């Protein structure tokens, strides 16, 4: 694998250098450093793809980028998108053993299992009367944009492995996450910002831990790693110049390093040095373009209010706005995490908290993208690593345990048919029974919308042609495509 990795690095380096026009050494650098173009002008969306593999996309993509709104902790499907009147009728009764026998179970191990009816009401929204719960009134307003999938299944019942599975298609650590796969395959549309960005929000209840493995690059080259943005301090680790060192000094320092490296390269002819010069160039660009991205002063009051964004707050609302800004500037995969959805108890209270923080900003993001003509080319996905049991759990007030045999997600934007519901669970909301969608199918569909045939997108690792969708069969969900 390692040789392979090195070749990949070599290959990508070549395409990177030739396609981005950097690495040309002094000439390119001096034009950059002389500030011919302002930072703002540079960060406007660029059309050309930078990096990426030759031969990709395999066919014309419907979506150019992905915004994944990950609701970490496992939001309940039974109080969001999957209304079960039968479960309401059976509230408090023993849960039929025919469903649960021999099935994996998390915190309810060894406990008596009883039905927990829906803890809220549902309404019908949009032209097709999509059923959405009262926790999500704003999502109701975009019912015609979203395709609700009610028949998700996953394979892991604990948070950490379930996230790893959702993000990498396997529970074995050290595999590339979907954002890495996609930026590796397609490159990015920006060279000044990372192609794969991770934003986690503050606020809400006790948050799920999230490992950096979830945006790891695995055996793909390191530059495809998700870059985690911070809401406080440096937006990206080590981005700011050290105290007492001004921008001009930093620039001069980098120029000197590059000059010395180039001079040395005349003696030792090492191609690695050219790559290094390019990396320093990019680092310098990022030192300007990331703060520019994070600076919301250019956004109208109206836009800020639409999202409920407050600069520097690190809220989900602010991150949604940043997601749009990243999308505009050409990032390929924008991964938002909101981490408060693990409602073993007091579900109503915590749903109010979580939905209060996320519902409106999600609506705002979809609307804003639409207004700007970007929704058609942006795939937006909403969902968590699993759903919650139709059985009662009572840590505090009524709640629900982890559940993997049936749960809901939604997709919207580039290439997705809005206003429809796909698949169904049984009458108790336990098993997905109609048009079952595995996490792998979700991956296959996402890749398909980006113009990638998931079967043909593989990298050899430990002798195996490794894919995001793994070795098991997986299918593009054709019915939900435009």
């Amino acid at each position, binding site marked *: *694998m*390692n*040789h*392979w990795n*090195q*070749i990949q*690095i070599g*290959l990508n380096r070549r395409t990177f250098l030739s396609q981005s026009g950097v690495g040309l050494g002094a000439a390119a650098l001096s034009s950059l450093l002389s500030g011919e173009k302002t930072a703002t002008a540079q960060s406007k969306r660029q059309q050309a793809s930078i990096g990426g*593999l030759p*031969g990709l996309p395999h066919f014309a993509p419907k979506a150019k980028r992905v915004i994944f709104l990950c609701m970490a902790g496992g939001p309940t499907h039974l109080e969001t998108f999957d209304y079960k009147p039968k479960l309401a009728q059976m509230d408090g009764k023993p849960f039929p053993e025919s469903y649960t026998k021999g099935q*994996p179970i998390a*915190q309810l191990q060894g406990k008596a299992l009883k039905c927990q009816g829906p803890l809220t009401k549902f309404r019908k929204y949009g032209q097709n009367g999509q059923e959405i719960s009262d926790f999500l009134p704003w999502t109701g307003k975009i019912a015609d944009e979203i395709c609700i999938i009610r028949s998700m299944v996953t394979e892991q019942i*604990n*948070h*950490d*492995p379930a996230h790893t599975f959702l993000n990498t298609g396997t529970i074995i*650590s*050290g595999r590339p996450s979907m954002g890495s796969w996609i930026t590796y395959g397609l490159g990015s549309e920006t060279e000044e910002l990372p192609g794969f960005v991770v934003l*986690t929000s503050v606020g809400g209840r006790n*948050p799920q*831990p999230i*490992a*950096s493995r979830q945006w*790891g690059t695995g055996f793909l*080259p*390191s*530059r495809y790693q998700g870059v985690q943005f911070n809401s*406080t*301090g440096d937006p*990206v*680790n*080590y981005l*700011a110049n*050290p105290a*007492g060192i*001004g921008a*001009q*000094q930093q620039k*001069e320092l*980098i120029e*000197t*390093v590059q000059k*010395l*490296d180039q*001079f*040395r390269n005349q003696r030792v*002819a090492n191609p*690695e*040095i050219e790559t*290094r010069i390019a*990396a320093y160039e990019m*680092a310098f*660009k*990022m*030192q300007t373009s990331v703060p520019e991205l994070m600076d919301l002063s250019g956004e109208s009051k109206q836009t800020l209010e639409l999202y409920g964004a407050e600069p520097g707050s690190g809220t989900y609302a602010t991150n949604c706005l940043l997601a749009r800004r990243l999308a505009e500037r050409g990032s390929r995969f924008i991964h938002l995490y909101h981490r408060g959805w693990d409602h073993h108890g007091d579900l109503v209270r915590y749903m109010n908290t979580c939905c209060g923080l996320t519902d409106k900003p999600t609506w705002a993001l979809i609307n804003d993208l639409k207004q700007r003509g970007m929704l058609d080319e942006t795939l937006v996905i909403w969902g968590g690593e699993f759903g919650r049991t139709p059985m009662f759990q009572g840590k505090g007030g009524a709640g629900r*345990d982890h559940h993997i045999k049936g749960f809901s997600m939604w997709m919207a934007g580039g290439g997705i048919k809005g206003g429809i519901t796909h698949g169904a669970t049984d009458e108790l909301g336990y098993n997905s029974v109609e048009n079952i969608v595995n996490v792998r199918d979700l991956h296959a569909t996402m890749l398909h919308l980006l113009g990638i045939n998931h079967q043909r997108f593989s990298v050899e690792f*430990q*002798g*195996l*042609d490794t894919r995001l969708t793994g070795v098991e069969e997986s299918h593009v969900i054709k019915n939900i495509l435009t």
Partner: protein
Amino acid sequence: MSQVMIRHFGIGLVVFLLLPNQADAEENKVSFNRDIRPILSRNCFQCHGPDSTHREADLRLDLEESVKRTSGDELIIRPGQPDQSLLFDRVTSKDPDLVMPPGDSGKSLKPSEIQLIKQWIEQGAPWSKHWAYLKPKSTSLPKVKNQNWPLNWIDHFILARLEQQKLQPAEDADKITLIRRLSFDLTGLPPTPEEVNQFVKDQSRQAYEQLVDRLLASPHYGERMAMYWLDLVRFADTVGYHGDQDHHISPYRDYVIRAFNENLPFDQFTREQLAGDLLPNSTLQQKIATGYNRVLQTSHEGGVQRKEYLAIYAADRIRNFSGVWMGATMGCCQCHDHKYDPYTIKDFYSLVSFFADIDEDQHLRRGSDRIPTVRAPEIFLYKDSEKKQISEIESNMKTTELALKSATAEKDLKQLKQELDKLKKNRAAIDRGATKTMITVSIKPRDIRILPRGNWLDESGPLVQPAIPEFLGSLKNDQSRLSRLDLANWLSDKNGYGLLTARVFANRFWYLFFGRGIAPVLDDFGGQGGPPHYPELLDQLALKFYADQWDVKQMVKFIVMSRAYRQSSLESAAQRKRDPFNQMLNRQARFRLPAEMIRDNALAISGLLVTDIGGPSVKPYQPAGYYRHLNFPKRKYVSHTDERQWRRGLYVHWQRQFLHPMLKAFDAPSREECTAQRPQSNTPIAAMTLLNDPTFIEAARKFAEDVLQHGGRSDTEKIRYAFSKATSRAPEKIESDALMNLLNSNRRVYQSKPKDAHAITNSGLAKTKQNLDAVEIASWTEVTRALLNLNEVVTRN
């Protein structure tokens, strides 16, 4: 070639990698293992290989008897007659329904590969077992024309091939490069200017060997070797899953350092880690060594299902065990027979069975969200002072207990009880503060079944007993059940896996000192891993390692004493084009230093480095809030405010889920899985790290102070001093001019902004020397920062 690479980037490239020497092959003779097996493995074995559940047409192409049998009226392969061989017929078929591999497999053969198959059949289709499963063969020393070049027999193998190819070995590297190379390779640290001077001046014949001996005897040698070992065994300070809480394991790291420093024979090193607890009268160090079995990723999440996690841990162990010692990718067999190699799902669970006696139930029954988490069984490693306190407390407790028995008065009883409670508390406090480490304790082995498709809920599979993979023979002892110790012994037994283990590690030692293995994939000696470029040399090294009774230092010394090792790493465009991965070995390698060494190097140059060996892990500066995604419990990273700030990189607290961002930026692995070879990236994030991480700013500042104090009088002298301290060589004029410009430009800035200068002198823990001028320190800090960022400074040449 580039066209092919683009069309089949997934496949073509790898083949390109495996077969680059074909054009150079001796006398046009096709070698089955080098040329043919990789083609078959890559393109055919998935459907016609070892995995019986997915085999098509009941045909195996991985076995000679199967390949040379008839299929209907036709022979799969008729030696000498490609035209009468069904295999050749099918791979050359123009009929899309017949051609192999089939169109929908995404695989296809290149014309050059088809040509190779043709030649091979014409040459009689000679077959041989996969190279990695054959015991190393002893070969006679290859003859060379240039008798002056070789220094030991490594060089004979290399020169003989080079001469055959009409190639020259590279010149010897200059002495400065050599001492830098050896210092980094053997200790992970740069040479001091004095060491460089001394070595350059020393014209004696023994100078080089003396240098090697000095470095091998350095306690930093063990640290350097441990860096690699800890990647293999995925050593980390935290549990890895979910809450990623701390666990106790640093004494195991120190055991590894010590083992390399004391040159513990590798077979014993293996035994102690896998089964130190089962050795008769096992010592404390041997018990600590068994931390190996415990350092896997574990979960302490509420609601983990015991059976599921036992299955996850079992698979983790076998992936690691087989990757580390066998160079095998047995992870595949958790769910099914291996697609390319002869390992079966039964082999996998039989290996699991060896580890079924490890007590790992305790934490599953007592999950804990606290830090450190519950990871019993552990042992306490009391300091002498603690031992003394304990014996005092315990004797006091005895006295008090006795008094309690005889006391009758209410008041006395109450007082004595209070006293006893206090003693108990003190005793417990010692345990809380004492160093502990996870160890292996053997309990009654649990039953191990084959889990069909790896599904832990499926209990229909048969029970299995400990056994080695079937195709490698069988193993027995005089008890009823094989133990971990038997397995460890088998790994070093000449009649077991011993010589194959020796080959796996000979290759990895080679990698440490040449940047690449002789066999290219260090953790996959299977069919997909690619054959060695110098198979005879690799075999010879393996035999030597075994014959030397697993003497690691001797092995390392033998490699670095070779002429091949001493070659220059300069590479011409022509060399790069002809042999991009240097498989011919007519030059040395140059590569960016590993993450820990980048840190160590900067700290060493600056004079900040604290060279203590071992101890609990340390916490250097880290961006605020970097652990904000961790929970159960939430935690704040508090960096150390004493000397621990400047310890070597290998002691940095290894948080699996959030590895220190500096280490991560330079490709250190999270240590969730076995890493036999790190990637080497060159990213903007890494550039920003080296530019702006406070550790490097502090190092640059202390370096600047050193320059001001010891660098001479004039700026020119100082630049010369600084430059040579960082690179071990004198600057050329262009170089010193560039630095002089940087210096003066910064002087102008800081003279007008003295506050900024003070911001620099006031940053970091290490105090600035009082008698130095802040503007001067700040200006020189920019110069030293530039030096620490030079490619040359972070590159091993």
